[in-house]
Structure formats: structure tokens, C-alpha cells
């Protein structure tokens, strides 16, 4: 597992393109778009472009919640309506300042998003779709009930043109305002998606269990992303109120929801700027929204069906691979789709050396400490933990104490409760009775994300690696909460965010280097082979700098050399003062790595002891591992008459 030094840093562009970043092209394009009316674009097309900007906002909100986070919302038209009515009412009633109405519209969108998201996200994804669709049906009813404010079915009329700081905006200036609002939102969305927050959103889409294990509460995170995706719809509504200067409840119906969804899928739900393409197709493309004919339902339906099928492996993957190929060659074009993993910004990486890596590991795990003496004194105590699943007793009273610096292995046949034990410790499963304590903190009874934040990191038997991240990014996701930076500093890329990002890269570099993954740092993590993904899991857990490290069968699928260096790694992690629990079937690996071995059977610990004691206990081996210890190369003849293993039906230690 000798780390091959990664040969090529992405060479910084030289010559005329030195210092160029794709974002500059985006700014230039935005300026050109804003200047179009003064470049001879006629008034009709200016109006069309305003609608495209408005639809872009709504579509990109759908992209954020469905494309990136996997939560489908059909309620965008209702939030659009709320923004429009609020802005219209304000504008008519002498509060007509564009910045103010945008603010109020945004706040109204957030509130509506909360009203829909908080109940809608209690169940699976389709429940959000239904609850959010429901509020679209409510628009005409609510408009009618609030007739004195909204005009009801008589429509809201007489909305004045927008003002800014007391100045009435000319049509050209209003156009610029539309472009600026859409551009500002897209910039916000870009910075969100391409950030640590964005990476956690991908984790969320991939696996709720992983999200919890990395310290994020799944439910609130979903609500947060959904509410963020509602904001642009509210802003779009504000702009629309000024655009049409007249609002009718029929403008915000089911057909709009369908059109927005189709635009999102067509433009690429997982892209940032694809929303512009989708919105343009909706307004000026062959499917013109304005002339909503009966055949257009069939067309939209077919687009959704086909678009949904294209999400499947194969075509999009290949299209994405093609895009990646193009973009890696001409990075200047990266403005098209900055979410291609290979292009994400990263710092320079010095060549690795094994020695530096080991020093880095100690520094990563116990920052500030020098020398082998550990400050960590808290022990992990498991006391009489039981767990029943229906009528099945998965754990029947397990107790053990694990000290920092010690590697504890749990072995036993399949179904003996080993993984359940890890799940109980990490909070994914709550114990039916019994207590888990880390130092003086009680872990049991806390949710998984809370346990994770107390310093418990774990790997999974089946690696869970989010799609669309490089290995280095996937590894750094575990640091999101230990080194937290809020949403706003993140999107604004403040100094604090950049510092955290640098620490992420440093930690990821160390974790990758000690797991022998340096060469794969920039590869797409989810596409790596199984054994390698297992190492990515270990690297991710280590990068969190945990106090407790839980490894669920880390050695399966690894080559002999890899297993050996994994063993050294586990020892080194423990030596840095970390509590390590290892579940493993590879017996010789366990014998050479663990300080204490517990043998489990049907939910109970039947034998505990040092590796020597366990090795000399052939009945146990025969009964619980299915065979005696295979002749370990170089371990010599079985140490007959060695120390007696402690044996009991009650848990030892």
C-alpha cells in the first residue's frame, strides 16, 4: 500500500489565461445579458428574457431540492403565488420599493416553505411531493378567502411599476433588475452546491444513515434545503407581480408545476445553470408555455418520463463523462457545469512521504499533543446492553469497557449481533435496555447525529459513498460538524470558511495518505472498486479525528498486503489515544491487531481474552468461527497450554 506520489498536480494555466477562473466568464456573460436592451434587443424580446429570468429562479429552486437533495417539490407555483401576491399588495399599498418587496417576498417564501416542508418531510420523498402539490390546489381557495387583499377571482389589478430608492424603474432598468436577481441567486446556489454544505447535501441524497453518522440531523437538513429551494420561487413571484402588474389565481396552477418540473429535468436537475436552459425552453422553445394546448400535457408528460429514465445509469453517466472530458481539456468552459468533480477547486498537494503521513496522523487525531502520552482518558463503557427486534433478541446483555489506546475486536458468526452492537454504540439503533457511556457522557438515548458529534465515527460493512464527489471531498465530509461553518459565511466564502476548507484538505490529505489512497484523491469516489471504497470509508472516519472509531469489517475484500498495512494503521490510530472497536471475520488480522478479543454468539459475549488466549481456545474457534484457526503463516505451532481464556456466559471484563 505504498503511496505512489500523485504525479501531476492540476497544472495552473499559464500565459494569457493565468489567474483565470470560470467564474469570470460567468460574470462577463451576466453583464452581457444585462446590457442586451442597449445592444438593440427589441422590447418584445426583453419581455421574453424577463420571463426566462423569472422561470430560471423557480426552476433552479426545484433543482436544489430535487436534483441535489432528492426531495421532490411540486409546490413551486404556490410559493411563486405567495411571493407575487405579497409583493403586489405591498406595491399597491405604498411600500413599493423593489428591495423591500424582494425581502418580504423572500420571507413569505421561507414561511410557506416551512409550512409545507415541516409536515411534508416527515415521511418519504413522495409525501413532500403530495403535500406541496396540495398547496397548489389551495391557491385559488386562499385567494378567494382573502379576497379583500388579493382581489380573489376578480384578480389583483393596478400593481405599479417597481421603484428603487424612490425612483421609478424604466422597463430597461427593470429588465436589469430581473437579470441581477436571477444572477445573484444562481451565484448563491453555485457557492452553496460547491461547498462543504453542498457536499453534505449530496451525502443526504445518497444515504440518510450516512448523513446521521456524519453528525447531520437528516430531517432538519431536508427542511433546510427545501426552504432554501423555496426562496427563489418567492423572488420570482415578486418580479412577476411587477412584470404583469396584474395577478390572477389561475396563473399559478397545476400546469405551471408540471412545466417547471419538465424544465428542471430537461435542463438537468443536477446542474446549476441548466435551469436557464430549461426556463428558456419553457418560454421561448418549442413547448411555449404561453400557448398551453391540450397536446402540451402529453408533451410535458413524455418529457418527464424520458427525462426520468435518462437519470438512469448509462446515458447520463456517459453524457457526464463526455462533459467531464471536454471540461478537463478546456477548463475555461467550466462555467457550463462547475459540478464536475475533477474541476472543483482544491489546494496544491505536496508529494507524500510515508513518514510525514504517520506524523500527520498523530497531529490529526490529537492536535497540539506531542509525544505518545495520551490526554484522552475517557473510556467507552457498555453496560448490559440488550436489543430486541420484534421477537428476536439481537443483543442479550453485552458489557465491555474499552480504554483509549486499545484495539478491541468483536468476532463471531454472522447474526451473532456484532453489527447491532456497533449500531447501538453509534446511535443508529437504540438499546432496549442498558447504557453506553463515553467518559461521563451517556451516548445511549441520543440520536445518531448527536453521538457522531460527540466524537464517534464509523465505517459501514457495505461502503456508502455519495455520488459526484472526489475521494478527497468524500473523506472531508466527516469534518463538516467537527469544524462547522454556517451557511452564510460558506456562501460568501469568508476567511473562516476558507480556513476550514484548508483544514479539511489537510486532514483529507493525511487520512488519504495513511490509507494509501493519495493517488485516488481526485478520482470520483463512488466509481472506485469495492476494496478501495472500504478504505475510503476508513479514511473518512479517521479524517473526523474521532475519539471512538468503529470499524465494521474493514478488511474484507482487501489484499494481503493491504490487510497488513490496515493493521498498522489501526494500531497507529489506537496509539494516538483513540478508542477502536473492530468487527472482523479475518481471524489472523484480528489476532495480530487487537489487544482484546470478544467472541459473540447469539447476542452474547461467550469468550473474552487476549489474542493468545483466544487462539488457544480451539472449541470456541470450532463452535463460533466454524473452523479452528487456520495455520497462520509464521505463527508457529499452536501455543498449547497457554494462559486460560476467561470463559463465561456472563460477559467478561
Amino acid at each position: 500500500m505504498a503511496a505512489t506520489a500523485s504525479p501531476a498536480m492540476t497544472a495552473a494555466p499559464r500565459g494569457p489565461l493565468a489567474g483565470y477562473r470560470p467564474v469570470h466568464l460567468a460574470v462577463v456573460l451576466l453583464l452581457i445579458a444585462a446590457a442586451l436592451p442597449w445592444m438593440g434587443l427589441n422590447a418584445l424580446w426583453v419581455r421574453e428574457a424577463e420571463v426566462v429570468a423569472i422561470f430560471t429562479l423557480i426552476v433552479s429552486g426545484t433543482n436544489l431540492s430535487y436534483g441535489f437533495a432528492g426531495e421532490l417539490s411540486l409546490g413551486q407555483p404556490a410559493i411563486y403565488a405567495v411571493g407575487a401576491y405579497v409583493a403586489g399588495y405591498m406595491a399597491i399599498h405604498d411600500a413599493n420599493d423593489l428591495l423591500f418587496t424582494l425581502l418580504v417576498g423572500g420571507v413569505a417564501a421561507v414561511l410557506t416553505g416551512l409550512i409545507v416542508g415541516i409536515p411534508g418531510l416527515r415521511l418519504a420523498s413522495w409525501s413532500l411531493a403530495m403535500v406541496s402539490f396540495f398547496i397548489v390546489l389551495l391557491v385559488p381557495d386562499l385567494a378567494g378567502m382573502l379576497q379583500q387583499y388579493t382581489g380573489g377571482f376578480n384578480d389583483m389589478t393596478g400593481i405599479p411599476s417597481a421603484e428603487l430608492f424612490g425612483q421609478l424603474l424604466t422597463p430597461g432598468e427593470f429588465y436589469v433588475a430581473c437579470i441581477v436577481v436571477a444572477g445573484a441567486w444562481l451565484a448563491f446556489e453555485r457557492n452553496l452546491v460547491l461547498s462543504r454544505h453542498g457536499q453534505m447535501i449530496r451525502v443526504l441524497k445518497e444515504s440518510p444513515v450516512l448523513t446521521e453518522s456524519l453528525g447531520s440531523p437528516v430531517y432538519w437538513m431536508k427542511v433546510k434545503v427545501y426552504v432554501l429551494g423555496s426562496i427563489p420561487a418567492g423572488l420570482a413571484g415578486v418580479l412577476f407581480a411587477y412584470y404583469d402588474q396584474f395577478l390572477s389565481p389561475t396563473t399559478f396552477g397545476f400546469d405551471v408545476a408540471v412545466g417547471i418540473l419538465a424544465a428542471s429535468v430537461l435542463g438537468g436537475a443536477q446542474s446549476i445553470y441548466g435551469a436557464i436552459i430549461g426556463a428558456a425552453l419553457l418560454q421561448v422553445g418549442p413547448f411555449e408555455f404561453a400557448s398551453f394546448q391540450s397536446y402540451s400535457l402529453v408533451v410535458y408528460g413524455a418529457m418527464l418520463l424520458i427525462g426520468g429514465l435518462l437519470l438512469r445509469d448509462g446515458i447520463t453517466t456517459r453524457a457526464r463523462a463526455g462533459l467531464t472530458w471536454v471540461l478537463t481539456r478546456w477548463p475555461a468552459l467550466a462555467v457550463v457545469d462547475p459540478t464536475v468533480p475533477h474541476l472543483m477547486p482544491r489546494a496544491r498537494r505536496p508529494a507524500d512521504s510515508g513518514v510525514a503521513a504517520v506524523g500527520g496522523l498523530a497531529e490529526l487525531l490529537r492536535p497540539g499533543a506531542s509525544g505518545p502520552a495520551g490526554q484522552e482518558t475517557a473510556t467507552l463503557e457498555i453496560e448490559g446492553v440488550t436489543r430486541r427486534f420484534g421477537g428476536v433478541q439481537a443483543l442479550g446483555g453485552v458489557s465491555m469497557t474499552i480504554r483509549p489506546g486499545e484495539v478491541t475486536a468483536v468476532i463471531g458468526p454472522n447474526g451473532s449481533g456484532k453489527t447491532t452492537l456497533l449500531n447501538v454504540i453509534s446511535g443508529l439503533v437504540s438499546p432496549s435496555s442498558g447504557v453506553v457511556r463515553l467518559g461521563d457522557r451517556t451516548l445511549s438515548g441520543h440520536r445518531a447525529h448527536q453521538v457522531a458529534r460527540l466524537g464517534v465515527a464509523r465505517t459501514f460493512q457495505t461502503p456508502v459513498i455519495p455520488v459526484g464527489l472526489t475521494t478527497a471531498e468524500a473523506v472531508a465530509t466527516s469534518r463538516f460538524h467537527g469544524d462547522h461553518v454556517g451557511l452564510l459565511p460558506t456562501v460568501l466564502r469568508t476567511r473562516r470558511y476558507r480556513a476550514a476548507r484548508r483544514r479539511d484538505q489537510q486532514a483529507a490529505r493525511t487520512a488519504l495518505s495513511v490509507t494509501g489512497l493519495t493517488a485516488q484523491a481526485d478520482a470520483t469516489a463512488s466509481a472506485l472498486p469495492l476494496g478501495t471504497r472500504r478504505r475510503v470509508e476508513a479514511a473518512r472516519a479517521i479524517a473526523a479525528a474521532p475519539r471512538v472509531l468503529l470499524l465494521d469489517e474493514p478488511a474484507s475484500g482487501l489484499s494481503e498486503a493491504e490487510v497488513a498495512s490496515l493493521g498498522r494503521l489501526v494500531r497507529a490510530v489506537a496509539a494516538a489515544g483513540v478508542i477502536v472497536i473492530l468487527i472482523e471475520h479475518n481471524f489472523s488480522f484480528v489476532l495480530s491487531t487487537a489487544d482484546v478479543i470478544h467472541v459473540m454468539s447469539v447476542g452474547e459475549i461467550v469468550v473474552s481474552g487476549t489474542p493468545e488466549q483466544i487462539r488457544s481456545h480451539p472449541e470456541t474457534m470450532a463452535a463460533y468461527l466454524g473452523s479452528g484457526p487456520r495455520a497462520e503463516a509464521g505463527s508457529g505451532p499452536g501455543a498449547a497450554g497457554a494462559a486460560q481464556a476467561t470463559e463465561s456466559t456472563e460477559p467478561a471484563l
Partner: protein
Amino acid sequence: MTTFFSALSTGAIYTLLALGFNVVFVSAGMFNFAQAQFMMVGTFVSYWVAVQLHLPVALGFAFGLVIGFSLGVIEERVAIRPVLGKVAHAELITTIGTGIILDGLASLLWGTQPFQVPFFGSITPIKIAGGYVDPDEVIVIGAAVVVPIALEVWSRNSLLGLACLASSEDRQAAMVRGINTRRVSLIAVAAAAGFAGLLGPLIGPQTYAVYNIGDTLAITSFVAMAIGGFGSYLGSMAGGFAVGLIEQFSVRYLSAEYQNVILFGALVILLMLRPAGLFSSARVRVV
């Protein structure tokens, strides 16, 4: 009393639709957004058979069943199987797409005006306990009581019923135990679609044949499922009737425009307090 009866009969329609959603939910572990559209297709088929072809209304059942079943097979093959379990959340889009295509086809074939679907039996209202109820409503209410009970018994006692439960719980584990989960999901989607089509002549006289009736029916049945618990057949029945009562009585004592708002309020409260439904002890897996 008449309000009560009409509440029961609209509630019965929600119940029957919710059953269709549930059959797919239980067997394939997903929400088939096009389910309500199959019911819409059923009403048009019975209109087509009875009014346009001048065939006996009862033939509408057979046509509805066959057409619904076939559409279900097509949907499962084209829109569900290629993505379910392979691409996260893609089936939401493809089944919505299917439903919208059906909406669009219906509006192309029959236009956007509602058509009255004739009932095959007597249309003289029956007087019961001081209120009036139409014979077709009585049949729908009866079906909404009998079918859920039958489904509940069937799912707990028949091999196929247990296979359905098993494959929604854990597809891989079910496969390992020799259950053909693809087949289970195909049968479930197609059977639910056929069932919805079959109901056309029964519910058409009440709902009329309208191209976009599926959208609102889907929402109200969703509320019924939320009340009764997703995956529970008896819960669907309780939830369906509850929604019917809430709707009719809020129309009667408040105003028509409050009907949906009150229903939405009920849905929000339920999802917050009892996300698994009032009548279900089963946990819906969130993580």
C-alpha cells in the same frame, strides 16, 4: 342525513383509490403517482362504452379492467422497472410523467368538458333513515367496505400477499428467499391499475369523466392514506370515510372554499403528530 350519505360515498371513492395506492406501496415500496389517472381512464372507458359505443353499461367493467391492467403493465415496464431501486428518486418523476401523459391523452381524445357516465342500475334515490342516497352510491360504499377487508385478509393469509409484504420490506432479502420481486411489483402495479379501471362504471356516475379529475382525487386519497396509515388497507377505509366526512360537512357548515384548507390543516396536524397514521402501529421507515 343526506349530507352524511354523500360524505360516505365520496369517502368511498377516496378509499378505493387509496387502496390502489396502497397495493403498490406495500408490494413495490413506492408511490405510483399515476394511480389516480387509471381511475380517470376507467370513467372515460365506461363513458365510451355506454354512450359512444351504445354497448351495455356493464361491459364497461370488462373494458375498464382490461385497459387499466394493460396500462399498468406498460407503466411498470416502461416507467418503473428501469429506474426503481437503481436511481434514487427517479420513479417520482417517471410516474408523474405517466400520469400527465394519461391526463393529456384523455383531454386529446375526449376534450376538457366533463361527461356524465350513466349508471347501469336504477337511478331512483333510496330513502334511508330520513336521508336520500342513490343506488350507485350504495354500491360504491359497499365496495369500499368489502374490498379493504378482503385485501387485509388476503395479504395476511395468501402466499402472494405475504410475498408482497416481504418484497416491500427488503427487496434483496425477499429475492434471496426465492420471491420474484420484479414479478410481484409488476402484478401489483397492473392489478391496482386494473382495479381502478374496473371501478369506472361505479364511480363515473358520481365523479363524471373529466380529464384532470385524477389530480384532485390523488391529493384527497393521499390525505386518506395519511390518516389511515400508509400500507394499511383497513386504515385506507377509515381514512377515506374520514376525509369524505370532513369535506362534506365543512362545505355544508362553512363554505366550499374552506373544504381544502380544512383538509390541509388536518393533514399537517396528522403528519406532525402521527406520521404513521391514526390506525396504524406500523412504523414507516424514515431513515
